């Protein structure tokens, strides 16, 4: 039977790429046994930021839905930790997937509102919704109001080694999982449909793609990813407050990572996250200068190389570690053989 979408072909680099990536994940996961605690923390942070960046890249880079409000789901994940972990006494690491569920369910009505808006309006609308979430929780005195509350009680009973180890494993799982999810999604026909919608809604619709459904499912998927990551983030931060949980700084960080690394590529967020953390560590002690430098770098890339660092590498070496683009390659031998 003939498939009606062209296959994605990867070169040797893609096998090496996947192998190296898996190896790195395994090394990262083994770190609790041999690395220092500070490094574990940093690595966990790297992976959860990667997870967020992949989710934002999926929305903005592949779906063309420029959300400035993904912090809504990070914050909801954080507050799911408060309700389920602190109040209901569920193991905080079990709360992480549940927080994804909470965020996903919240994304349904929110999607109903924001999908009435397009382009710029969508960007502003998502931001306003995130602000509404922040203000609603800041007005809920039973959840700590504006000053928030501590979740130390929820994690206190877990031995410290296990806490650090589980945090890292879950971060690796989320970062690696988000990357894998985007990769597999884009290799499927749904991914093709998604990028078609991004490039032209009219053309995609005329080819029989249900625009509403594909946008919704990607939006909800991204919300789930951000919600799970949010819960994990606040397990490490130990204190949830509306200001921190729903801060637009989360989206700013995702934006930097994705734009510098390369928007609309899977490799981009990985490289972008490495650069983000390198810059942050190098400029550590210079106050907010790392943000200024990062902002300048991001603006520079948008102006002169909109596809980011990864785009430069692709242009130079035709490298594809996670191939998702459909490329027409005429296989003459096979063609002749079938005659």
């Amino acid at each position: 039977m003939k498939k009606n979408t062209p296959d994605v072909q990867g070169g040797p680099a893609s096998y090496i790429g996947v192998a190296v990536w898996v190896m790195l994940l395994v090394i990262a996961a083994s770190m609790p046994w041999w690395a220092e605690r500070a490094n574990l923390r940093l690595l966990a942070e790297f992976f959860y930021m990667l997870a967020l960046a992949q989710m934002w890249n999926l929305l903005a880079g592949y779906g063309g839905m420029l959300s400035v409000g993904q912090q809504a789901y990070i914050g909801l994940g954080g507050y799911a930790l408060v309700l389920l972990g602190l109040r209901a006494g569920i193991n905080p690491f079990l709360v992480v997937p549940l927080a994804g569920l909470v965020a996903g369910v919240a994304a349904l009505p929110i999607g109903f509102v924001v999908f009435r808006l397009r382009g710029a309006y969508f960007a502003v609308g998502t931001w306003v919704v995130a602000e509404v979430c922040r203000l609603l929780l800041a007005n809920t005195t039973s959840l700590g109001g504006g000053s928030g509350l501590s979740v130390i009680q929820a994690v206190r009973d877990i031995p410290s080694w296990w806490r650090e180890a589980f945090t890292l494993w879950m971060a690796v799982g989320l970062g690696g999982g988000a990357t894998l999810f985007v990769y597999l999604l884009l290799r499927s026909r749904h991914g093709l449909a998604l990028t078609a919608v991004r490039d032209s809604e009219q053309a995609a619709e005329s080819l029989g793609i249900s625009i509403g459904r594909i946008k919704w499912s990607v939006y909800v998927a991204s919300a789930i990813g951000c919600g799970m990551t949010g819960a994990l983030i606040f397990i490490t931060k130990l204190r949830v407050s509306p200001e921190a949980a729903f801060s637009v700084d989360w989206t700013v960080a995702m934006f930097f990572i994705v734009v510098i690394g390369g928007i609309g590529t899977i490799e981009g967020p990985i490289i972008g996250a490495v650069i983000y953390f390198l810059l942050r560590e190098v400029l550590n002690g210079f106050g907010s200068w790392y943000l200024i430098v990062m902002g300048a770098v991001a603006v520079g890339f948008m102006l002169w190389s909109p596809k980011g660092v990864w785009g430069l590498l692709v242009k130079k070496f035709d490298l594809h570690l996670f191939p998702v683009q459909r490329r027409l390659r005429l296989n003459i031998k096979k063609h002749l053989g079938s005659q």
Partner: protein
Amino acid sequence: MTQWINILIQGALLGGLYALLATGLSLSFGIMRMINIAHGDLAILAAYLALAIAEPFGVNPFLTLLVVVPVMAVVGYVFQRTILNRTLGSDILPPLLVTFGVSIIIQNLLLEIFSADTRSLKIGTLSTDSINLIGGIAVGTFPLMVMMTAIGVLGALQCLFSFTKLGRAFRAASDDSETAQLMGINNKHIYGLAMAIAMAVTAIAGIYLAISTNINPAEGSARLIYAFEAVIIGGLGSIWGTLAGGLILGIAQSIGLQFDPGWGILAGHFAFLAVLMLKPNGLFPITRDR
């Protein structure tokens, strides 16, 4: 009853400030089809420029307008010509991302230079004076000034758009930039001028903001949301719609504030979302959405 009339008046006057803040955004949105995320931060930048002049030299904050407004106009023109024009095209993402980056740069530069302390421009008793009308209704003098300025600026823009050659070029570049170019209009220059005007108005808004409330370097993004809401409620490209948007937002906020101090801003956001649910293109859209 009197109390509610006072609340409505306060809200409406607050709306004047929002409208002033939103006008620059509305211009760049309407003419360049560009969303300037750095808009709020540019307003705060103007406010800090005014602070840097007014505080050490003891100058009246209103006199700083004479310096800050032209400076910001030049900044706007240069910003548009050197950076923003390069990002314009059919895709809305590049200008959005670039201005997002610029917003972070301005915010953190201000933080490094002026620290995170809140500051405000002092105008003495004028900031608390009010005019008493019949029946216990009072109107704040300064808020009234802000509203008059907003109406004046919007009226001047309306005249510019309707009766001048430049205004016609603005409208042409907005409606169909390619055809406008065929007719001999230099779009890049026109966009630069539009941004210069937008930034001049934003400078006024920023200075008024710093007079009416305390500001800090991070204030820009919070203010940006209100400005966006005013523009979108009013409808793309509608000058008076922006004023209406500001009024609706200001009145919603001051009514919400009466019920609970935490609900003011929230009520504004709900009003915005409600308008968009009913009319996704805003109340009085004039320019076609491309």
